[in-house]
């Protein structure tokens, strides 16, 4: 697999284990009310699992297996920036969740938005019919 696929997959596994651990803590304390510690920060569980794990894994594998142009993956120079925006956005979003800073969450979510735009820009030309 390409180097950047490996980077994305390893990062996604980290989020799978961390976000999964938080979810397990939430489930283990089910019934103790929304004020208990893990439930108070459930937004982080949701974002870690949906963006940190699922989206990051799919993007890494997509970069690897989407059709190429002969042997080239066009716009692949965007992948490092995409990774920085995605993971920077997730970290700032987490900071916002744990410090209850809506402004920081907003900045983090803007990072996720920019990453999504960048990945779509990378992948768009690679979604093509055979031989094109």
């Amino acid at each position, binding site marked *: *697999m*390409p*180097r950047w696929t*490996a980077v994305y*997959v*390893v990062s996604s*596994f980290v989020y*799978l*284990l961390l976000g*999964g*651990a938080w*979810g*397990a*803590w*939430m*489930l*283990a*304390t*089910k*019934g103790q009310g929304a004020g208990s510690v893990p439930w108070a920060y459930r937004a982080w569980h949701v974002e870690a*699992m949906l963006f940190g794990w*699922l989206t990051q*894994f799919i993007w890494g594998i997509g970069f690897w*297996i989407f059709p190429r142009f002969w042997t080239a993956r066009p716009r692949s120079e965007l992948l490092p920036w995409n990774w920085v925006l995605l993971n920077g956005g997730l970290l700032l979003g987490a900071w916002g969740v744990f410090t209850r800073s809506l402004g920081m969450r907003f900045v983090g979510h803007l990072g996720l938005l920019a990453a999504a735009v960048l990945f779509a820009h990378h992948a768009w030309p690679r979604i093509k019919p055979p031989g094109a």
Partner: protein
Amino acid sequence: MPFYTRLFVKTSLAYAVLAAALLALTDLASLMRWSNFSPYQTALHLFLVGWVLQLIIGIAYWMFPKYTQARPRGYDGLMALAYGALNVGLILRLVVEPIPTFWVESWARTVFVVSSVAQWVGLLAFVVNMSLRIKVK
């Protein structure tokens, strides 16, 4: 397709059906005012863990680079552990979570803890096995 791919993918399809059924039951419970039946979060997790995650696990096990010639797909014991732990955890959750009056019972709290630990152990077993197969070419 290898055995564990077939196992995970077929199981994931079953969870997709189950999750959709539970989602419909959520609406029915609201319509019928069954206040003691609240399966929405269970349906979400059957969808995301039972269906999406297990589909990914099955396909990743099939498609990732080979570990070694002798063990091309890594350690199958870890995949067996991932399958068993994830599904035991999900089924335990399915038994207890939709009925809120259970939540305060001590037996139900024990079931929640066992379910949560089992699901996380399942994730860990999958991650360890697949991490061995991440190879840059």
